[in-house]
């Protein structure tokens, strides 16, 4: 076995293991902190795909931004230790049906995809290419995403602003 394969399996194990803790831990703070492993593992897999820029952004946005926000929210909740991890508003039977359908779909798509093995990972600077694509080929989706983010920003300001009464 090559060392890259070993590292890959290690990364996959970290990602899936942390994700399992996120889903099954009874302590909601543990779940939140385990997200760190999941995000970092996914970033490692991006590195394996030769997408170092995406990996850097993954860590920057997900660990530096989103995870910290989640942690803030979680730490301000009470009853951290005994969270009801099963959702009582939906029954057992619909859950099993949905899981079965999605599992089937996933297995189907995994089996149907022709997995090509990359011969060698080449680390070329991808940043400029990504920028070109954003501002040429994918300009419309890019601008739309910016608009959505702007709307979210304005929404946050409106929500957090104090009501001033005349």
């Amino acid at each position, binding site marked *: 076995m090559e060392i890259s394969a070993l590292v890959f399996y290690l990364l996959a194990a970290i990602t899936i293991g942390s994700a399992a803790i996120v889903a099954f831990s009874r302590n909601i703070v543990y779940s939140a*902190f385990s997200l760190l492993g999941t995000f970092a593992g996914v970033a490692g897999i991006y590195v394996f795909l030769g997408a170092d820029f995406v990996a850097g952004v993954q860590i920057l946005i997900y660990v530096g931004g989103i995870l910290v926000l989640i942690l803030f929210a979680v730490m301000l909740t009470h009853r951290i230790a005994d969270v009801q991890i099963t959702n009582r508003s939906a029954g057992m039977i619909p859950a099993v049906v949905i899981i079965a359908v999605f599992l089937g779909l996933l297995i189907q798509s995994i089996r149907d995809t022709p997995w090509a093995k990359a011969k060698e990972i080449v680390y070329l600077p991808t940043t400029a290419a990504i920028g070109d694509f954003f501002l040429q080929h994918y300009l419309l989706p890019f601008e739309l995403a910016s608009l959505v983010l702007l709307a979210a920003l304005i929404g946050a300001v409106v929500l957090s602003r104090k009501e001033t009464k005349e």
Partner: protein
Amino acid sequence: MQQLVDQLIQEGYFEGVPKDFVYTGFMVLVALLVLSFFVAPLAGITSWLERRVWARIQSRVGPNRVGPQGILQWLADGIKNLLKEDIIPTAADKRLFALAPYVVFVGFFATFVVIPFGSQLIVADLNIGILYLLAITSLVVVGILMAGWSSNNKWSLLGGMRSAAQIVSYEIPAGLALLTIVFAAGTLSMQGIIKAQGWAPWDWLLFYNPFTFAAFFLYFTAALAEGNRTPFDIPEAESELVAGYVTEYSGMRFLFFFFAEWGNLYVIGAIATTLFLGGWQIPPITDHPVLVGILQFIVFFLKAYLWVFVAMWVRGTLPRVRVDQLMSLCWKYMVPLSFICLLGTAAWMVIWPQGNRVASFVMFLIGVAILGLFFRRVRFQIRHAQPVLYWKPYI
């Protein structure tokens, strides 16, 4: 290096182990050893120097007993902390409490991977050097939140929350200031940015245009805030929060947090040097490869350490800001200013795609004038304070 490993393999030291493993193992081992033996004394000596510098600023003596001028104080402190009992509070969340110092430490230590000490002296010159730096330091926030929450102490939690809010906010002006330089240099790689500059000060990106000049100060201020340094050290403000998120820590775990803080000072200086101050660039005076390497390292180290000293100086002279002042400084002044710097540099590059040498010279002269005025001011102050200063620094 590779020849040595090849020879070891041929002599049969690693029977049955694939070559890949041996190479990777050796590379990791050497990099870790070099970094540890560089980073550990660096952080230690910085801690001693900081205490001495403050002491002089406050007309005290400071630690001067262990070794000449107390230079071995950090070893004594380290041994003392290693031997101390490792206390974990009963009500604390033991696993997270134990893990938190390491997360903080990894976030700081991993930055050394991309710091270019010389044209050959870098662990890994990543294509995304700066992005990696910004990304990996976000681990520190997670570690601090972990420490704050798991201590099960109000002061710790408040300190952790404050720290996270502060770091997340100040990441934005710091990141934008760095992005200004990425614009001017046209690359994210640390070595690439240094190669875009020259050895002469007017070839540095600091003097590239007025906007990068301003971005430097924005970066340095924001980096001090990100490193929880005075005047932005509200997460561990003694007068309000005991010791913030490190209140419950003792012994070596406590030291790990401060190890990261002192080492981080050097990282701030190194980033500022790489991006704004020409990095390891030296005048072409010699061709000897070893000599060039040593000179480059010395130049880089001194430039970076100058900013460590400035940070100590700032800490010794400025009072702490309030929480609301901290946030309004970031969001109302620094973020808009850094956006102006970014857009200004972009416009500058549209007008002068090759840069503007005359403007660089003018900026350099302005920089020298500011420095001159500053030193005149300092001399004036020292002359007036002379009668009350206890003016004998080396006891």
